């Protein structure tokens, strides 16, 4: 049994403490915006915020989030109104879209600590979030747009 705050709501889940947070969020709670890509912390598709820090949910055990705060793509902003989400639409970033929840969560972490990142800082921060459709250039453009328009 694990209790934590998920997208501003207190949740209690009957899951083994060793269960990866990814499956707790996706299957036990039912929020499927966070994706399974590799299960090994290699691709970033499962990126969520744990107490404001971007973590790989597939490498985060349920027991380690006890009493803490988790935010997923569904809870990033009301009605998908986060400047990054708007910029993502304006730049038409997603193609297959599967990695994009993770990309946006990773980018949101950057803008929180650095509202005006340089291109090099964006590239450095986002390195490790894989997009097989190759939307990297548009991801950079969208982060720059969100930074300008936020």
């Amino acid at each position: 049994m694990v209790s934590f705050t998920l997208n501003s709501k207190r949740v209690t889940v009957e899951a083994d403490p060793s269960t990866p947070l990814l499956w707790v969020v996706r299957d036990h709670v039912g929020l499927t915006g966070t994706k399974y890509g590799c299960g090994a912390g290699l691709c970033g598709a499962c990126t969520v915020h744990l107490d404001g820090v971007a973590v790989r949910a597939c490498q985060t055990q349920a027991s380690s989030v006890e009493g803490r705060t988790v935010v997923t793509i569904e809870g990033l902003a009301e009605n998908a109104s986060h400047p990054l989400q708007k910029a993502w639409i304006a730049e038409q970033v997603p193609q297959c879209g599967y990695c994009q929840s993770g990309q946006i969560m990773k980018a949101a972490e950057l803008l929180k600590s650095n509202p005006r990142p340089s291109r090099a800082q964006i590239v450095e921060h986002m390195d490790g979030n894989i997009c097989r459709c190759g939307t990297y250039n548009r991801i950079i453009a969208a982060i720059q747009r969100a930074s300008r328009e936020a």
Partner: protein
Amino acid sequence: MTMIDTNISRRSVLAGLSGMTFCLALGTDGARLVSDAEANTLANAHITPWVRIAPDGTITIYTAGAEMGQGSMTSLPLIVSEEMDADWSKVVLEWAPADEKVYGYKNPFADNRLMWIVGSRAVQLYYPDLRMAGAQVRKVLLMNAAQKWGVDAGSLKTEPSVVINPANGTRLSYGEIATFGTIPATLPAVDPKELKARKDFRLIGKPMPRRDVPAKVNGTAQYAIDVKLPGMVYASTLHSPVHSAGPGIWDPGKQEQHAEPEKWNDAEVKALKGVIDVVKLSNGLAVVADHFETTKAGRDALKVTWKKAKADGYNSDRALDDYVRIHADPNAQTQTLEAKGDVKAAFAGAAKTYHAEFRSDYGYHAQMEPLNAVVRISEDGRSAEVWEGSQAPDESRKAVAKALGLANEQVTFNQCYLGGGFGRRSLGDYAAECATIAKAVNRPVKLIWTREEDIAQGMFRPQSFQCLEAATDASGKVTGWKHCVVGDGEFLLITGIKIPYYGVPNQHIERRGVSHGVKLKHWRAVGHVFNTFAIESLVDQMAVDQGIDPIAFRIERMGLVPKGRKVFEKVAEMSDWNAKRPDGRALGISITERSGSLGAGVVEISLDRASGKIRVHKVWVAVDGGVIVQPESARHNVESAIIYGLSSILHERVSIKDGAVEQSNFHDY
């Protein structure tokens, strides 16, 4: 974005509708629109709704464009909307049912219809039928308005979702017409001359936002991996690490190709927490459990002895050496792909000859969403539903029906977004596997392949060895061309090997095949990747040798066709081809053709000579793709192909040792 619900039968749609429904039916002349009246007389499964207009003006259009990021989910209904003059803001989309006889395009290679969204051809192949369908709907709307007003339909015109009488300015919206309109028993014929002229397009060729994008930034886009059903359990499979495929594309239907599990720690795995069953498949084992994490733990705990597989002992590096020997063997079996002019004479009389050899690796799709499917079988076992992100819903439905011993019509296919396709998701193999498991455990099942399984059971772009030779005359013109590709994969090896954009008079192009048992598949156009690299590399070598600009060489000495010349001129302009580059940088250029589109690209790179590492600084691509329905999507696709191609050539490699794939996840692929 409208969430798409395909759990609607035609009957319930018709029963619940007020408004007009246009149906697509199979006639002797192929798919066409039929009216409700006619449709009702055709009481068989080949009739389903295509376009319907509600009295509030909402126009629902079925889309057959499996969406994996390439945008055809939006492009296809946009074509219908263009010809019916629909207000695009009032159009909602629903996935077309998986019935290729009704919703398929005409297969250019055989006398049937297909829903396969493959080969970069979806828009091209659906374009004629969808334009006609839209035009017919518009004609019916005009006829109804004309009747109401007592005027000649030919005197009326349309604006988006409105019929207008120019004589007096009166207007009727499509929604209003739907409240009183009737559909003639036989829909009006449309002469191709009546279709819109390109200059009149309002939607085609304009920057239109893709319909799937908003759902992809807020986590609501539904992939098959997100589907959850009451009572559903999870499954994950372990297949023989050694493949056992026949030649060509892997055919899951050929049982004799499978490497069966012989012995495994059944009791041990079944005793694990949450594990419900271990199901034996013809080519592997499936662990079924209450959650994915328990399923995966069970799968990872399996210890299996496998029966003999075709690829036992196979080593991909050694095979490449064998390919060289096969190429040198005058008795090797050969398939001639192109024989033009007199190649022997061209080489015998050549002023100079050139020779180049290349090797290419296996390529893995590595789509972000590991393969998965959900299947539910009805209690009486006489029908089933499948949820999958499929490039070929019709194939998936067929595969599931076959696995369950049902007729195709007894299987309902629910399309989902695809977390990447790249050619892998068109067989329905994992959906059929999920159906087999669901039948064995008698419960709805979600099957998820782990990433490790996804790569170990990859269906790869085949590796190849290539030998090319060219002959030039005294003026430096290329007069003879020989290209031999050696490898596994039959026709997968040969796409992109012909050079219709060059006018070399004497050509001999051939394939020499082997079969290793490794599963192979299309991989983003597949053969173009290695064939184009080899062809264009040899052309560049000749240009350098002759001291001529590579573009000029292609035009003057390779007999480049005018369309090819244009794409080179465009890309030269885009890249400022003749401008001086920073020290240490160099440009490369090439051309390729795919499904009727011609593209030329320029890259600016630098090379670290110590490490041999290439860094790509800039890429420019010019594509002549004919009528572009969605220019933004086309641009995205080209950008995507650039990154995918660069990543493949600079970073990716699948190798096989002792029959098994050596790579296991993103860190080593």
